[in-house]
């Protein structure tokens, strides 16, 4: 059962990576990053359910770390979308192909 959960989380992670690599809309790229973070969260929760028998570590450690991942995801989304708004105001685009000032 644990391996099933981990496989699903791995599939979701790979989908997020494929989204980051293929999409050109910066907002959709942020959504794919959220997918990646959620795959990591699913791993944390699964291990906190199944790895409790190892001594010295509380069984809820995984859940606490999942909460921290959510904090980081929320901060990332707020700052990232603020950047997108500022970028759109200055350049009039959200396509990562047109935002290439720092390229080369």
């Amino acid at each position: 059962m644990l391996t099933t959960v981990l496989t699903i989380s791995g599939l979701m992670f790979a989908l997020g990576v494929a989204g980051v690599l293929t999409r050109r809309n910066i907002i959709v790229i942020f959504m794919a990053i959220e997918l990646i973070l959620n795959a990591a969260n699913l791993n944390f929760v699964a291990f906190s359910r199944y790895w409790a028998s190892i001594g010295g570590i509380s069984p809820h450690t995984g859940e606490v770390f999942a909460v921290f991942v959510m904090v980081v995801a929320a901060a990332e989304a707020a700052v990232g979308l603020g950047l997108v708004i500022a970028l759109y105001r200055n350049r009039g685009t959200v396509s990562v192909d047109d935002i290439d000032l720092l390229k080369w």
Partner: protein
Amino acid sequence: MDTITSYLSSLTAEHYFFFLFAIVAIASSLEVVMQRSPLYSAIALVFTMASLAANFVLLKAQFLAAIQIIVYAGAIIVLFVFVIMLLNVRAEESRLDRFGALRFIAVPSALVLFLGAFAAIRFSNLDTLSPSPASAAAGTTERIAELMFTKYLLPFEAASVLIMMAIVGALVLASRARDVEAEMAAIEAPAESEAPLPEPEDRLEEVEVS
């Protein structure tokens, strides 16, 4: 055949629900990546988060399931939808086809990533782990708070500082930049920029009296 039937009879309702929500999660995250309109991607992301929350409940993490719904579906996705609506991003999408070559590299590399992770999981001995004995208090707010405010107090404080910085940063980034020079010029020479008053006869209006 016997192995299949014995496997199926070993499955409980928990397993069936788990597979149901897992399939929904995978299908909707595929939609997030594949949808052409960013708004439809955001809606598919809501489905992903909701089915993940259901899976959290099945993994005895009720508090996280509630937080998942409140923070992701309630706050982050709404923020995404706000920005999509605000910017009114129409389809970037006709230009996607220009990057066919890039896509042919990106999708296989994501596939290789998944296969590597799958092999690592498959050939591990993780399946020998059994779930920890379920107590009534597992996954509740109390248990998580107990850990978070004792052992992980410092990361908790760091997280609150991070949130604070993110709030300020988002406000600074998203607020309109002030044109300081124009404001200074308006303060120093307020009257000259104003248009002169129209002549009195221009302001009079002829009204026909019958």
